[in-house]
């Protein structure tokens, strides 16, 4: 382990001891030996600062099986700080409903309302894992505990902390649980779907209303935005029309003399180009010495 306490960009190292894994059953070979994992921790300084930054730590290079509970236990053990919440950076891509951007454009209040309305999805994993080397923001209850924790980390650098064995079970049990959660009860699923569809309908309705409002309300400069009402022409139909037009154009091929002449010339050039290409291909194969019979 390096001796420096501080790294570039104010990162602090927190070594973690990963206990050895005994082998899972019969068969040759062994399990995994003990290993040391390193957390890279610094104060949370996002590009857009917020009031909560002071009590937050940015934890990088997390183990793949990290959970909120892990970090809670870990930091309590290290510095005694109480963790309020953890935000992982590799959550699912937020579903982008068409209503959302429109709503976002209007004002932040409504956006908040929409976010609140997003229904709880059915989860198929009781313990989602993270991509190797991912990051999280850990919010402590107050500024003091975050600073204290960081200080403790700097001090206790040489003694690795224990990676706690908490959270739902891993291994076979986790996959069995996943298998169970994958097939939810029909009623539950129906409920979830209905809730989503209701929220979706409302969001769409809201978006429509917002659009209507925009049509009526003049903006600061006194202009009214013109927004289409009907459905857009489907792209396929437009393409089809274009194709038909082009077909019509092509109908008079080979009628004029210049057309014939040009066609001939083009053909000749094409032939030549092909010849050149062929030549190149053979040259290339010759380089690979591919012309000697096996």
């Amino acid at each position, binding site marked *: 382990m*390096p001796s420096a306490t501080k790294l570039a960009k104010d990162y602090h190292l927190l070594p973690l001891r990963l206990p050895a894994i005994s*082998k899972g*059953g019969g068969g040759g070979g062994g399990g995994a030996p003990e*290993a040391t*994992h390193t957390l890279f921790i610094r104060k949370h300084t996002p590009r857009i600062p917020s009031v909560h930054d002071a009590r937050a730590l940015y934890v990088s290079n997390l183990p793949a099986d990290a959970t909120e509970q892990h970090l809670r236990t870990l930091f309590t053990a290290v510095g005694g700080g109480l963790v309020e919440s953890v935000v992982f950076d590799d959550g*699912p891509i937020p579903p982008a*409903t068409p209503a959302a951007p429109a709503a976002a454009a209007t004002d932040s209040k409504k956006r908040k309302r929409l976010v609140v309305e997003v229904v709880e999805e059915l989860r198929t994993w009781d313990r989602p894992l993270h991509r*190797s080397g991912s990051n999280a923001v850990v919010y402590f209850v107050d500024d003091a505990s975050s600073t204290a924790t960081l200080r403790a980390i700097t001090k206790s650098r040489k003694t690795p902390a224990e990676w706690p064995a908490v959270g739902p079970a891993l291994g076979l049990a986790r996959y069995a649980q996943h298998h169970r959660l994958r*097939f939810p009860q029909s009623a539950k699923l129906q409920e979830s779907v209905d809730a989503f*569809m209701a929220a979706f309908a409302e969001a769409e309705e809201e978006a429509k209303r917002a659009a209507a409002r925009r049509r009526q309300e003049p903006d600061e400069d006194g202009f009214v935005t013109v927004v289409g009402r009907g459905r857009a022409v489907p792209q396929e139909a437009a393409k089809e029309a274009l194709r038909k037009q082009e077909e019509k154009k092509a109908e008079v091929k080979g009628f004029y003399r210049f057309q014939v002449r040009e066609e001939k010339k083009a053909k000749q050039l094409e032939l030549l180009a092909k010849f050149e290409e062929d030549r190149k291909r053979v040259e290339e194969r010759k380089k690979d010495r591919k012309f000697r019979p096996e």
Partner: protein
Amino acid sequence: MLPVAKRRRTSMSPSGEENAQLPDGADEKARKKHAAAQHKTQLTAAVVGEMQGSYKSNVFRMETEEMLSEVAVAYGGKRMKAVEGVLHCVKALIDAIPDREGMKIAQVEQQMMKRKIHIPFPEPRPEKSVQYTFAYKKPAYGNVAGSFALKTLVKGKDTLGIDLVLTMPSELFSEKDYLNHRYFYKRAYYLSVLADGLGHSHEFKELKLKAEYDFLNGDQLKPVLVVSSNGEGCALDSKRMKCVVNIIPSAPPGVFPTSKLFPFKNCVRPQQQDAEPAPTPFYNASLAAEATYFPYLAQLHSASGTCAAFADACVLGRIWLRQRGFGGAVSSGGFGHFEWAVLQAFLLKGGGPKGHGLLATGYSNYQMFKAMLQFLAARNLVVDPLVFGASENVKVPGNRTPVVFDGEHAVNVLFKMTSWSYNMLRHEAQRTLETLGNATFSNQFDSVFLQRLDEPCYKFDAVVHFPFPSAAELEKEVATGTEISGKKVQYADRIYKALREGLTDRVTLIHLAYAGEKPFNIKGRKFTPAAGEIVVGLLFNAQNVTRSIDRGPSPEEKKKAAAFRKFWGSKAELRRFPDGSIIESVTWPAKSKTPVYQQIVRYILSTHFGKAVAEGVTFVGDAFNHLLEGGEQGATLFQPTYDAFNTLEKDINAITDIPLAIRHISGAAPSLRAASIDIPLSPSYPLMDPANVVVQFESSTRWPQDLVAIQKTKASFLLRLGQLLEAHKPSEIITRVGLENEDHPIMNYAFLDIIYPQTGAAFRVRIYHDREAALLENRRNNPALSPREREAAEAALVEHKQIFVFGPRHTDSIRQLCHRYPHLSPTIRVLKRWFSAQLLGFHIPEELIELLAARTFLCPQPYAMPGSIMSAFLRSLQWLAKWDWRKDPLFVDFTGESKEDFRATFEDVRRKDPALNHCALWVGSSYDLKESVWTMLNRPAKVVAARMTALARAADAAVKAAALSLEPASLFVPATGEFDFVLQLRVDKKRKEKPQKQETVYKNLQLEEEDASPVSVEDLQRLDFLPAREFVHEISKLYQNTLLLFPCFSTGLVGGVWVPINPRRWKANVGFSSMVLEEKDGEVVVAVNKPAVLNEICRIGGEIVRALSVR
């Protein structure tokens, strides 16, 4: 190319008309320049055009030129000068041998015994009582003949043979010497004197040469003296090339009356006085050929003088023959480069309509080569001999060998050919013509000239081999005094005839091969044929090969019936058939484990050639059939699954009260196209893996316009469909709705499992909505979204296409093909097993493997249509080993029309992505001309594709090395030596295991246990519970930047490779589990923390990981 260009240049001077196109007022210089440029364009175009007339294509022509220059022997070079020096010395030594007076046989033998030289008299040896004398006189003429003289030698691994032909003086022979081997006895003595003269000469030893006897082209009437190097420093040998000199005594011209040597004449008088003298065509031709060396050499010379491409065409023919294992020797077919050249020279003079030449002197080498093949393929020379300069009928009744008869010399050029080698030659010619005519074939040139096509396991559907009987037994088996040279040929001929009669139309081709004789010592006692193996190659007729009853003649046709009974012995029986006819017949137990053809071969060999022979028989390739459950059977094994699918279709169609009507139900799973390794519904497996099914509803405008909402709507539909199905057949159908793609909301969200517990059939239904693709495409192309979102849209689009659009099309295509080719289904399954055993199955899409196997059947050239698992599997593997996926796509043409655009698309893709970062393998088919849908998103990656090629090459080499002792199981042993670490996982128990009663942990399916049903509740609950598979998928995703896993789920073995990552500067999104290496100036250098990653993997896997071993 050059002479053509020159000719054009003189004939096409720029004319005034061309210049007239220039605009007025342009100055002289510009005009000249323009004219020159235009001229050049026209010139090249003209050359191009001309080439296209006489060659297949420009590429083909250029490839031919390259190959010809590659194989050309430098005649003027230092090497050849040295060889010529040796020739001169040998000639001088021969000239120095003193003449010997005529002596009687007894004296001759005594004399040679003293000199310790063996006289290679042909069998039967001359009797003691013969009155004529043997003498030696200096050769009347001696010179080099054959391809060395014609300059058509070809470089290669084989030794180059240089023929030194000596014309024996005519005083040694009398007119009657053509009879009863007299000429050959005298010739043998002549040769032994030469052997004596050279073998005991000091100069000869100083040149480091040695002399041995051999038979000219395996013809045991004609021994020759082979002079070869005897150790280091001989001028005949160099690093690159080895030469031998064949010293061939030949007959003086005009000694024997040609009229006596016609094929139907008898020249070996029978020993019994009363016997009918039978024609001796082989003897006659062999004797007549003795006087043809120099005349034919002159003829070939004049042909190559008048026809520019003659020599090159000969070289092409020579290479073509060699790649297919043909040679001039009797044992390798009796059709070598010499026969090719002579036939080609004859066809310049005749053979065409109205006696005109079939070939024209103006032909290019390719045209000449192709015309030769067409001649060989189209004309049956057995039925319709080609005769020059003789008006008589040259056919010998009952003879089944081809005839190209030269009346002037009374020689049948093809006299060494056997009926099987002739059939093989025609077969190969036909295959090559098919190859040249197949436009979808991308590398025609390679398979015609460059590829070696003489490996029996690749070439034939089944290979049978057994040892020759010992020399003494051979003697007994084959009557002496008959006229074919060599006992082995005679024995082989008998075997061929018996097999041909016994296997009837079950096979399309029978080929026999055995090793030729090796050169033997001049001081030896007597020539004894070496023991060896006879290798029988069979090509099957897929329709008939499994037939269990052979119908013979009716008992009323007495002669035929008697012959039938005689041939089949106790097996023949009189049977009454359902159509009322009572005929002789033979039946074979069809249900037996040994295939019918094997039973027949064994039976015939044991009845006609003795039990010992039949017991020595080995069948190669049979083991491929035992690799699979269900053996060789094709798509019939999948019929229950097809039936179950039909039931599902009916049941779904019976549902009426859902908001939208169902338009289409299509299968999209390997088990619904006879392509899954395991048979989905068999007694040993009570429940099948859910087979993917796609349901499409009629189109409606009421679908939401949003991707996520569409997925939820689908879930709603599925829930309803499930309830209705359960209500429709309450006791027969169980359904459950499952969720997938939790992290990807725009991908498919829900599926419906429909299970028939009584039959064990299970299906997984997803709903296809046609607007989805367009929405995903818009999202992918939307510049307002983040790259991550667009990537996700791209991934979703690819998955959508694979599951909903191309999955059903692919399933239809493959299922139809499996129906058409009975061996396709087992071939796909064996190939899949190979991929899986070699730990590639996780990365190589199943569809790709299926297309690979389909290609072997749809485009079998240069081989015949595969008729067994062995041939189809090995050829697929060979193709894979040769596939240069950087430069060539795989295109499978189901509909039978070639697609030029496909190649253009491929080249476009490669141009845009020369490093192959987006798509390593480009695989298209008739239903997928634009996208290569199965290999999109870099699946498999370049490194995996390279490993695939390497493994295929290794397997191909192993098969070639093993040859006839091929052990198929050895190809299915994974190579784990190159992995950084190996995991042993708990194998997912799928269906075989009997579930334990206590394990009712998962109660989401509330079921009443039924004793009648073979499927228990636990079975249902465990359906599709595959933790090891899930684990590997998850790990691959979590560590996609760090490592690459190669799992095999049936054995639980997982090979792992670290992605090479150089130590780099630390940053928050470095993308892998990092470990600090060193610190410098406030910068931290990190590398992958491998122990921590492995520890994590084991922790996540828990009891799934049985063992981990790190290299």
